[in-house]
């Protein structure tokens, strides 16, 4: 593997890790709200959260491009208000990974919260705990294994992200080139051999990651 290839690998791992950390707070909150509460519009929100799993990734990429492009509603605010450029930069890679892996995190964390008997939370309330204390001392710790498994899945998904990233971040060498994009480019160039090391590394990293996630979630038996 060349130095350039290693740069691509480390860049992909960095943006995947960053994107996973970014979606954790919101993902856990949304998962809990879906698992434990009923509220108007819940079905709509649930569907929206799951959309990136079913919509063609390039379509999702297009939506992100329209929203975060320089003239888009969110992109123009970020550009003029904060001087932040999103599309065609590493931030767009993080954005694409975050959006595409969010549903996996929410689904897994939601199941984890549902697996915690609500009796524990009820008894905690009778013992005087506020809702925040119930969440922090009972719901979250008991769901933690499932949440970690969800984060691992999200990371693995981010590592393999391609369609949305290609549209919203482009394939700019050293700036937005991920493992998947690089493999694709090598195929286009006819350099299949150059793609092989990256192929093995990407399969290897994701295999280990998903395996860890499986082990963690199998140990998370509902009590």
């Amino acid at each position, binding site marked *: 593997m060349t130095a350039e290839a290693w740069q691509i690998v480390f860049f992909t791992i960095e943006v995947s890790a960053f994107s996973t950390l970014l979606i954790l707070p919101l993902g856990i909150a949304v998962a809990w709200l879906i698992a434990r509460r009923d509220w108007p519009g819940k079905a709509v929100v649930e569907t929206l959260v799951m959309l990136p799993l079913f919509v063609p990734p390039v379509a999702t990429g297009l939506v992100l*491009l329209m929203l975060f*492009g*320089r*003239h888009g509603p969110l992109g123009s605010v970020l550009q003029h208000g904060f001087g932040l*450029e999103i*599309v*065609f930069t590493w931030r767009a890679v993080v954005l694409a990974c975050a959006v595409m892996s969010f549903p996996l995190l929410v689904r897994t964390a939601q199941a984890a919260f549902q697996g915690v008997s609500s009796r524990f939370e009820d008894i905690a309330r009778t013992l005087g705990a506020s809702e925040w204390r119930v969440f922090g001392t009972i719901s979250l710790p008991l769901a933690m294994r499932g949440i970690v498994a969800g984060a691992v899945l999200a990371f693995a998904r981010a590592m393999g992200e391609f369609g949305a990233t290609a549209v919203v971040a*482009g*394939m*700019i*060498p050293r700036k937005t080139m991920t493992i998947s994009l690089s493999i694709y*480019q090598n195929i*286009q*160039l*006819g350099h299949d051999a150059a793609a092989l090391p990256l192929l093995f590394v990407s399969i290897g990293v994701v295999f280990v990651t998903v395996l860890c996630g499986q082990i963690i979630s199998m140990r998370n038996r509902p009590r």
Partner: protein
Amino acid sequence: MKLTSLLLSLLISTSISAAELAVHAAASLTDAMKEIAVAYEKESGDKLQFNFGASSMLARQIEEGAPADLFFSADEAKMDALEKKALLLPGTRRSLLSNSLVIVVAADATSVPKSAADLTKAEYKKLALAEPQTVPAGIYAREYLQKVGLWDAIKEKVVPTENVRAALAAVESGNVDAGIIYKTDSLISKKVKIAVEIPAAEGPKISYPVAVLKSSKEPERAKKFAEYLAGPKARAIFAKFGFIVTK
């Protein structure tokens, strides 16, 4: 009696002799070829099926066995690659067109470069080019920038796109500050304006060859279409779109 037999024979002749040709053509040829197709289909009765894209990607697909009758590339190198692999029908290759490069910005852009050298300035952060290693439009642009010694200063700003039309779209969207595309592409879009024209004499030698593929199932029909492309009617349409028609 005469009329009905005439109609009948016309009907029979067109249905027997109508062929469908698969034409793989460079993305920059999209609009011109579509207009040519309308005229040719009426005249010959054959149907034209197009696959437009980056010549590099099209060549790769043909190499991998994608069924096609004709290949109309934006540079000679891609055609050479197919010729080396003996995928072309001998004697059918000819160079038809040329083109020139322009630097474009969005139609409402406030920063407009006056020369290629201006692109090195800080106000131009992102520059859209078709993939400069593989796609003809990108290769031509890179060769030009290398020739005038600007490539090293500019290459960090390059946002590579899959084909030249994607580079045009990127400039139109305003997500990049400028782009280098064919003059013919800039002319079909109202959302971009030409900032700098690179004269054909200074720019790289751009050449669009066409050839019939050996795997074609309708070689005679394909040859006929290739002839048409070299003929006066097609040349007029190419010229209308801004292509330089070679003698």
